[in-house]
């Protein structure tokens, strides 16, 4: 029997959506193209923070194990090593799958797309050399596979990813020559920056990478400082002896499946660029199709889990497994926790972004026929 709900992507958002809807009785299938579930949670070896409700003090991989246990208890059917290669709106959102053996189709009543995000590349001379890697890629290699891709590192970007991965590089035994950040101030949380600064790693704001040098692989990198208009200050170039350049310059939503379906999109730079328009219950402009987590705007794992729950409850409600009143109560609590997360200097631009998405959603249905603009 086909599942009533297919959740695509088993990271924090997808797992939470699957668990939540399965708890109310929805027949759920959780699909992931990887051989292991959990998305990027298992490489997060640092403690999360915020409040208790947001898993403060718990390391990412422990959150991962908790979610996997909950998924098992809720009898979520997890289908690994399976790629969703297409979705067809013309045949009621039928999805095309490939499990490395055969191609087949599934026709769920509801879909939650929780495909996460991809790291941004950065173009500069030498940026394609072996030894220039995404910071998340380095994190995967060292924290999951226990292999260090370089010994001496230049980190590009002082947002949370750049700061956290720099610290994790030290924990794994590498040296971090410097962290460069093009903006005049550190982008990530101070707590992460301070941990790094206490070890003596320089965090150079208003600095960028100009070049990665090396015949066959990275042997050094050139950095320079930037003036207030982001122009390179002549004469400030410095060559650093590094064999690995890590790029932590943001992520963008992996929203190809939403595009394939024809979901409406809007541009929110602070959430990673073009994001699928969705309402407060995480439903896209295509009825019955929901998004959750980074694909709906790049934030953090804690937010992804809350959005996943929200989507899961909304699906259960729409299929009649939970009364409207009960659903509203549950959803309001989650929405309040999400609002808690999106306050302050780091949170409020994200709240503004999400508000814009909501406005676009309302506009979409008041102005039918309007396409992705």
């Amino acid at each position, binding site marked *: 029997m086909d599942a009533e709900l297919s959740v695509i992507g088993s990271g924090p958002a997808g797992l939470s959506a699957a668990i939540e809807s399965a708890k109310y009785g929805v027949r759920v299938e959780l699909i992931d193209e990887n051989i292991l579930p959990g998305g990027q949670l298992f490489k997060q070896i640092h403690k999360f923070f915020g409040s208790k409700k947001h898993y403060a003090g718990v390391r990412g991989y422990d959150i991962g194990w908790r979610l996997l246990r909950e998924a098992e208890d809720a009898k979520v059917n997890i289908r690994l090593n399976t790629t969703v290669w297409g979705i067809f709106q013309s045949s009621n959102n039928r999805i095309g799958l490939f499990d490395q053996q055969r191609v087949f189709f599934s026709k769920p009543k509801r879909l939650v797309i929780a495909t996460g995000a991809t790291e941004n*590349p950065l173009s500069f001379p030498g940026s394609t*050399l072996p030894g220039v890697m995404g910071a998340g890629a380095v994190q995967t*290699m060292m924290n999951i596979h226990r292999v260090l891709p370089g010994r001496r590192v230049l980190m590009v970007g002082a947002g949370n990813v750049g700061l956290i991965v720099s610290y994790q590089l030290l924990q794994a035994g590498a040296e971090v020559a410097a962290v460069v950040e093009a903006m005049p101030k550190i982008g990530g949380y101070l707590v992460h920056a301070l941990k790094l600064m206490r070890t003596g790693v320089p965090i150079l704001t208003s600095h960028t990478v100009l070049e990665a040098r090396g015949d*066959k*692989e990275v042997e050094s990198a050139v950095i320079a400082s930037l003036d207030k208009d982001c122009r390179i200050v002549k004469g400030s170039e410095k060559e650093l002896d590094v064999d690995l350049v890590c790029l932590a310059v943001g992520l963008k939503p992996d929203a190809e499946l939403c595009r394939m379906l024809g979901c409406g999109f809007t541009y929110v730079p602070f959430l990673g660029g073009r994001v699928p328009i969705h309402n407060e219950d995480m439903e896209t402009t295509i009825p019955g199709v929901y998004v959750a987590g980074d694909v709906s705007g790049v934030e953090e794992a804690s937010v992804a889990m809350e959005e996943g729950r929200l989507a899961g409850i909304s699906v259960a409600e729409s299929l009649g497994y939970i009364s409207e009143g009960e659903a509203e109560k549950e959803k309001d609590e989650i929405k309040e926790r999400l609002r808690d997360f999106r306050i302050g200097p780091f949170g409020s631009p994200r709240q503004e972004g999400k508000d814009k998405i909501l406005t676009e959603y309302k506009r979409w249905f008041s102005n039918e026929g309007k396409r992705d603009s």
Partner: protein
Amino acid sequence: MRIYDHPILGGLREKRKVSIEVDGEIIEAYEGEPIAAALLAAGIRTFRHTLRENKPRGLFCAIGRCTDCVMTVDGIPNIRTCVTPVREGMRVETQVGLGKWRRI
């Protein structure tokens, strides 16, 4: 380089070892790890060369998105080494351009 000791993750747990052949050389790998991890552990960082300019490429995203790390594996080109686990006796070759299909 393998990370044997880690302040958070602890000591590296011994896993079953397998041997794979990389451009004719035999290297040791841990069963189930991605080909890319085994190569990095053996100090190999160049996985392929580009079609037109013969430029070296290696691992970039490590989660199967960017396809920069593709190699020819058991005669099949364009295999994403970051998401393909090693198997005993696997033959891995540095790929040039789009690679050549070969019967196994």
